[in-house]
């Protein structure tokens, strides 16, 4: 005889549990973790390197690089003198909590204030998989176009800060900033936004100062309950 069993569980609850465990590890080491998401080519790795410069030794930083294959990004970051570890997802289009848990022992967490996790370049999947970060950051680059909030609403809803990158290209590319920001405001009201150019350095100091403030207030216990928006 067939019987029905009520389950009522979020499909990704197992991943979420591992993510919470990662977060506890970051917390106990006093490390603030950022999950950076963007499309391929938005400039994630360059942005991370420029963030390190703009931080100017105010925070000790480590990086986790996620890519389908290769260690190109990790090599770039390491050559800049940052502790870095590569995750190759081997085809998976996002990082998940287990992948991050596996590489945590490779980072000197006790010596770090900040870990930046560069997710796989993709605007669809990464936002569904929590990895244990304290905040999620989305990079939207000018060449991608002003309609991306409307086309990838999930990516814009699941983040705590937005970087608009490659602003040095604004004179050359049609990009209606009002239309873009209207979409962002609908999906994520009040989202803090940083227009930057990694090439010219414009806006990088403002972002780095904000980050230093965020980490220091988190460390002093003021931000114990930052909530990443629910799926």
């Amino acid at each position, binding site marked *: *005889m*067939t*019987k*029905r*069993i*009520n*389950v*009522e*569980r*979020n*499909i*990704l*609850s*197992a*991943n979420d549990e591992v993510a919470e465990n990662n977060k506890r590890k970051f917390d106990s080491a006093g490390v603030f973790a950022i999950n950076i998401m963007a499309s391929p080519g938005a400039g994630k790795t360059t942005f991370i390197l420029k963030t390190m410069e703009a931080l100017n030794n105010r925070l000790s930083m480590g990086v986790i690089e996620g890519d389908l294959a290769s260690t190109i990004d990790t090599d770039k970051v390491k050559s800049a003198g940052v502790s870095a570890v590569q995750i190759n997802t081997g085809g*998976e*289009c*996002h990082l*998940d909590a287990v992948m991050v848990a596996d590489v945590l022992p490779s980072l000197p967490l006790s010596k770090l204030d900040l870990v930046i996790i560069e997710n796989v370049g*993709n605007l*669809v*999947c990464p936002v*569904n*998989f929590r990895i244990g970060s304290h905040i999620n950051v989305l990079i939207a680059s000018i060449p991608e176009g002003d309609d991306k909030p*409307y086309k990838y*609403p*999930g990516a814009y*809803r699941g983040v705590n800060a937005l970087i608009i990158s490659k602003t040095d290209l604004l004179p050359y590319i049609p990009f209606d900033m009002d239309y873009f920001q*209207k*979409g962002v*405001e*609908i*999906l994520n*009201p009040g989202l803090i936004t940083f227009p930057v150019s990694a090439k010219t350095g414009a806006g990088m100091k403002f972002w780095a100062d904000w980050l230093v403030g965020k980490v220091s207030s988190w460390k002093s216990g003021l931000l114990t309950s930052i909530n990443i928006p*629910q*799926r």
Partner: protein
Amino acid sequence: MHELAVTQSILKIALDNAETVQAKQIIGINLQIGQLASLVDDSIQFYWDIISEGTIALGAKLNITRVPTMMRCFDCGQKFSPDAESFECPSCKSIRVQVVQGEEMRVDSIDVE
């Protein structure tokens, strides 16, 4: 694109729950998946047929209920389903709106023998 990871999670939840009642076979799995959840039904079924092999869930029917996207306007309270081009409220044109439904990814229940 991430349907394999999602399908693995569905299988694990189904098998764990079936085990607690010592079920012999899982006949069906009832899922609620929101339109905003970026999941493709056919891909889930495709992976399911592969990864459920050798388990008591082999052959189980995946009953996927698609939950439509609904938004609510903060200004006039209107509930509406947005069109793809814009998310503004159809009655008062406000953009102060929020998603109230459509992001679900949930195993509601399983049917077992």
